[in-house]
Structure formats: C-alpha cells, structure tokens
C-alpha cells in the first residue's frame, strides 16, 4: 500500500517534471499570450465555418423550430445547425457558408439583415486576464529576465 502510494507520487512527480520540461523547451508561462476571439474554424479554411450565438425577435418555448431556422438560413444562403441553448432566448448554431467568406463577415451581415434575427455574434473565445510574463529565453532557463515593461507597467 505504501509502496503503491510512493510509486504514484513518483509517477506524478515524473509527469510533472516532463510537462514542465516540455513547457520550458517551448518557452513557458506565457498564458497571457493566448489568442482571444478566435471562433472561426481554421481547420476548414476556404469558407465560413463558425459557432455563433443567435437571438430572434420571436420568442420560443424551448428551441426554435427547425423549419423557422432553416428558412432564415436559406434566405441568408448559409447553413445553420443547432448546437445547444446557451440560456433563455440564446441559441448556439454551427454556421457554414460558401468558400468566399473566410471570416464569416458577409454571412453574418446577411443574417443580421433578416428581420427575424435579433442578433448574431461569433461565439468568440475569451481568456483569463492574469497579466503574463514575457517568454523567457529558451536557454539557459534560469537566466530568466522578466521584462520591466510588463512587470512594472
């Protein structure tokens, strides 16, 4: 029992060390540099493929009828697939459209022009607002020199 516990602890430490080494080798502790607002599917470049949050001028018990949404999609020349409700009156859809609208702006503009659509926004990414640190020099790692502009700005 004790040996198993010790082994688990050692394994845990080993994993931790490996992760830390992997992170360090790539320039660690830079979570503040994570991107924000990335919601368009980069893997499907060439068209608009994005999650969107929609509200409608009409209210519904439960989710909006498929036929209602299909008509809006047809009018905007896009495809809308229901994902889930984000809350009362707020619905998440997968938006897909033609190959000439990589950033989805044209598709969103068409949807926003439909009187049945109260709003449509990209389901953007947000991040924590912990101020990060400048990426340390890759080697030697101990020669980490925080950048004054960041630390004392």
């Amino acid at each position, binding site marked *: 029992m004790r040996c198993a516990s010790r082994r688990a602890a050692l394994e845990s430490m080993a994993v931790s*060390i490996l992760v830390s080494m992997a992170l360090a080798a790539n320039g660690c502790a830079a*979570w503040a540099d994570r991107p924000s607002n990335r919601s368009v599917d980069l893997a499907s470049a060439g068209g608009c493929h994005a999650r969107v949050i929609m*509200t409608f001028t009409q209210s519904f018990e439960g989710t909006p009828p498929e036929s209602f949404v299909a008509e809006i999609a047809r009018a905007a020349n896009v495809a809308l697939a229901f994902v889930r409700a984000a809350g009362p009156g707020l619905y998440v859809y997968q938006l897909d459209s033609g190959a000439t609208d990589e950033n989805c702006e044209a598709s969103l503009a068409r949807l926003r022009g439909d009187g049945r659509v109260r709003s449509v926004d990209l389901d953007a990414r*947000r*991040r924590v607002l*912990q101020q990060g640190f400048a990426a340390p020099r890759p080697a030697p790692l101990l020669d980490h020199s925080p950048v004054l502009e960041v630390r004392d700005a």
Partner: protein
Amino acid sequence: MRSLITATFVGALLGVTPCFGGSAAPAAVAEGGGATELNLVHHRPAAAPLNATDEHQLIVKFRDRATAQTQTGRVEALAARRGFELDGQRSVTARMQVLQMRSAAGETVEQMLTRLRADPDVEYAVVDQRRYVQALTPNDPLYSGQWFLQAVSAAAPAAIDATNAWSTTTGSSSVVIADIDTGVRPDHPDLTSKLVPGYCFISDAFEANNGTCPGPDESDPGDWVTSSDISNHPNECGGGSPGYSSWHGTRVAGILGAASNNAVGVAGVSWDAQVLPVRALGKCGGTDSDIITAMLWAAGIQVTVNHQNLVNPNPARIINLSLGGSGACPASYQDAINQILAKGVVVVASAGNETGAVDVPANCPGVIAVGGLREDGTKVGYSSFGPEVTVSAPAGNCVNSGSQDPCLYTVSTTTNLGVAGPDANDYTGQYYCYPDATGGPTSGSGSYPNCTIGAGQYRTYNVGTSFSAPQVAGIAALMTSVNANLSPSQVAARIKAGATAFPQMSIDTSPQPPACPSINANGQCICTNDSQTCGAGMANAAVAVDQALRPIAAIALPSASFAAGANVAVQGGGSAASSGAVISSHAWTNVGSLALAIANADMANATVTSPACGVGTVELTVTDDADRQDTADVVITPTSASTTAPSTAGPTNPAPATPAVIVAVCPTTATFQAGSPAQTFNAYLANTANTNVTWKVNGVVGGNANVGTVSASGQYTPPANVGKSTNVNLTAVSVADTTVSSTARVTITPIPGQSSGGGGGGGGAADGFTLIVIGLLAALTTARRLGDRRRSLDRL
C-alpha cells in the same frame, strides 16, 4: 415626541464630559446586568474638553414596579422626585429609556447618577457613552503583505481600505459571489470552508481537460498548454504559447473571500460571503456561449445542458468575471447581462490588459468594469482604459529594478503550485519561481534564493486586471450585506460615489507619466477625474460601505399624466433604510427654479400642484435614524411627472430608464403689436445638466426682420410692421439633445392704421395655452440629480 420635564435641579456641577467618562461603562456591566455590549472597542480621545453646561445622555432602566406608568409619566415622576431636568428622549425597551439629563450647576455626572440610582424606580442608570469603531486587522499571517486591502497610505494611496470597512461589516454568508473562471482547488485550506457547490459549463472536452464537463464538478484540473496542444487544437489555442496552469479561478476566489481572520494564509475582501465556483474557462480560455450559460446559471436563471434543466440552488448576488477579449459588446452578452441585472445580480468584470480599449464583457452596459492601478494610483501600464470603466483598483505592479528583485505590489492570494495538474495548495509570492531544466526548484541553483518551491512546482507573483475586479466584487458583497435592497445600478452608483479621486501625480515614476489617454512607454498614465479613462476614482471599501448604509429613496407616481394645474400624488413610502436602521423622516422640497406648491411636504406621501407652464423639480429626501440620507427627484411638467427613482427599494426594482430631456417655453402663446418692445421668453429644461438652448423664429436661428428676431437669451423683438395679423413660431431647441424642442406661438398684429387690410386683435398678454415638447433621450452619461433650469428669466 420630546417631552421636556422641568424640575428643580439641585446640586453642584463638576466639569466632566460624560460622553467619554470612562467610569460609567464598567458600572453598566456591574449594575445593569442586562446591558449589552454596544461595540467593539472603546476609544477615549485624550483631553476631552470639559463642558459644564452640556446635556448628558443616560440609559436608565426602570424596575418592574415603574412599568405601570406610561414612559412619559414615569420620567416626569422621576424628575419631580429627584429634582432633575430630564427629557425622555426615546425608549430602548419597555423598561429601558434613553434620557437627556440637563445640568444646571455644581453637580458631577457621577453625583447625579448616584442620586438617580438611589431612586426606587431605577434599576440602573449609566452614561450613554460614545463608542468608536476600530479598524479590524485579521490575524491571517500573509495579510501584512496584502497591501491592497489595507488603509490608504502615502506609500500606497490606491489601497482599497478594506481594513476600515471590516469595522462596519465583514460581509454576510447569505451573499454569494460567483467566480466564473477556471474552477477552483476545492481543497485549498483558505477556500474550502467558503465554497458552495458549483458547476462546470465547458462544452469542449479538450478545453475542460478532465472529462467531467459539463457537470457538477467545479474543481480546476489545470489549464496548462503544451506545444502539441497548440498544434493539435488550432481553433482553441492557435497563436498561443505554452504555459503552466494558471490556477486563475483559485487566485480570484482568494481575493473575493478567502477564509479570513482564521490564522491561515491570506484574507479576502469579504470574510463572510460564500464563493460559488463556476468553470467556464479551461485550456486556452473559453467560449462566449459557455461563459454566458455559466453567468445565467450563477444568477439563478434556469439553463439547459445536455437536455437537463439546471437551476442553481445558491444563486449569486454578485458575479465576478476576471476574463475578457477584444471587440464591441456582443448582443448575446448584453441579452444575458440584462436578464441577470433584472434578477438583481451585480456583474463585475475586469477592464482588460490591452493598454487600449476596454474588453468584452466589461464594455457591456450595466457591468461594473474595473480598471487596474499601480500602488500610487496611476493607471498600471497593461490595464485597458476608457469611458466604459466604472472604477479602478490595484491590479498589481512590481516596481522592480532587477530581475531577481521582489515584486513589491503583487496582489497576494491563494493558488496552487502545480505546473500542470494540481500540486500543493499555497499562495502567490513576490518572485517568479519555476522549475529548472531538470525539474528541480530554481532555489537550488542559487539564482533565486527567495524561491520556496519544491521539485516540479512553480510560484509567481500575481498581477493583472483579473485581480482588480474581485476586489470590487468583494466590496459589492460587503455593501449588499449591509443593505440588501441595493439594486445593481445602485451598487455601481454608490461604489462610484465612494471612490477616491485619482492623484494627479505619481510618487515613484520619473519623469511623470502623461495624463490619460496619453501613455508613457510602459503604458502608464495619470488617470483623469472625469470618468473618461479609469472610471470614477479609486475604489474604497470603507467609503463604499458607508454609501451602502445610506437609505434608498424611492418614489411612486400613481398618475404619470394629468391636466395642467392638477394635484399630483408623489409617494415616498417605498423608500427603505439599510439593515438595522429605519426611515425617520421624509421631506419634499423644490429644487428647480420653478417653485411648485407642495402639500404634506414632511410626509411620505405628498401632493404637488403641476405648473401651468414650464417644468418643476421636486426632491424627496429620506433620512434614517442615524441621520444618513438619500434623495430622489420628480420632474413635473403641466401634464406629466417622471422620476429616475425606483417605485420601491429592492434589488430587482430597477430605476426607470434615464428620462428624456425636457424643454418647455414660457409663455406658450403671446400676441404683440408690430414694432413693440422686446419680450423675453423662458426655456425651462429638465433631465439634463446642459441648460443651453438655440432660439429660432419660424425655423431660422435668431430670426430675421420679417418674422422678428430672438436673442440667445430668448428676447424676442417683433418685426417693425406687418401687413396683416401674422403667426410665428418661437422655438427653443435643446443643445443637449437637438431633437428636443418647445415652441411658443406668437401672433403679430399690424400697427393700427398701417395694416393692409384685416388683422387686428389685442396685444401683449400671454394666453393660457401650454405646449410642452418632450423629445427623445439623448445619451446621458451621468445619473445624478438633474434639476430643471431656466435659461432666461428676466423680462425686459
């Protein structure tokens, strides 16, 4: 109420000021038996002045035998028996009264008390001493490093002074603060007793990183990012960099409400509030849709997850969002925020670390957006800024001069030391300590001798607007614990009212940074005191709590429209005092230049006579039994009444929408003979601080010789002559809102004998016709008392 009983005062007077006479308090305990402790600490100012002619306030408890008499009767009897001049001020209980005893000459307070205590009806008599609160210093060992919670000082003017707020309140366990973030380490010893069950709303398995989301698991498994995460998950992490786990939700939770005064770790802003951890962020952040669902659930609004309806059994009163991203406020956020505000829930968000425009969702109307300050009150370089910021608070800055120097102004809080998955629960530090290439602690290398971490661990200092927002959320929790009726907009208004003006110089930056929005090379600037850059000021917990203790003035208007000259009911009975206080008086007064008749002006419900012409403003002042006040206005036109106050006090009773600008020209009609002297028309305005108007005649600014001319002050001069009786429109257009105007109809009659036929009519007198034009609302950015203003008053 006050029944003054006059009797003969006999005795010698000694000059002892009884308010601070220390000997009576022990007597209360010794003799009273039932006397309660009034406050925390006695404070006796040195060398209190002696005043032999003061009234002395006493607490007198009568024996059972005296209760057969009325309270007034027994005081009268006592005064007559003992030869005192006593005033039966108020009763505490059926047998205990507060009395004013008036000195005449020669007798000390102690001598008077001795004689009082000798009376057979008196069980005890003690001086009603003044007590003073004392700043509470928690015994948490790391509190000494939590400079941001401490009293404002010359070295750290940006500190929020939670210390003195705690003298009034340490919060309430009935107030729940939602920490919408990466989750928490629920086993952290400084948090575990403060948490209520949360939920994870992360819908992406990679982002969640533990296989338990969505689901009732608020624990943070870590959000570390590896290079393979970035390459394999470009939608979530594209463009990012590898990083250790942030333990961000744990850090925020510690500021909101770490277990405090428990001799462990750090103190939180609200000692007694409960923290609701809600996971919406994981690896590489989180999506709007998950954050919105988390916010709605936290507020007690039903959401549906995996076909399951969820209702939070511990709804939050305050939601903290230490997260964000760039862009304009999306409609989806605004929709959710409006639902949440309607539930009476306060939403606080970090302004952002962009050194630029305020992030989403802090830039959404209704959100308390919190900017970041350095310790000296200047904007910290990374903090976003702009007119959307509500208030600012310390966000952490280091003032470091070398790479191994400590970060002097870190925002110390709870964290975990794991680089990836959870390791030991601990606290943030003043140094940036991370594993060396072998996985060992940097302290072993000697380069960072102050690092105290074990193998595979890391510890950082703590900076970012992520940590200024929870200070303000904690302040909101303290405020709502003493006044549960505060609505979200009232909480925001009172935080702003309690904020300290920004200092206009830096104490440790040379050369001096520029005034915002200009910035120096580090992004730093001097915050302006116009609410256009860093909000209304530096958040101050002690003053904000004092603001929260004020009552809430509410005005109901049973009839919002009526005929000119009508008696308009204005009702202030929905006003409310803070916890433990009562409203002691109502007062209705004219505050505009147009005085209106008010009946029952000292009652909760009054009646105001609407004007025949123009706009009046009547103000309700409510006062509680501690002499704290609040005011609210009613704007009354000849035919309508409006107010910005709620009809009744309560967290879900929002104030009406900001009212439209009102312009009313007086007189509304007039008839002049051509060539007659100028007459001044008055333009009354309400609901705007800008009382300027533009005068036009028949649409022409200033008029002309054919239709008459009007000066900038409203002096209208008819044309020299007209061929026949002619009507012109004299219009005042609000400068604050050019869509709002009011028009008087003026008839010009020809000079007798010079008409070209027809016309005629009398001259000079104004008719009783009234025209009020109420236009659409301009974008008013300040919600403060806006009285009516008369643009020009004097008749030539």
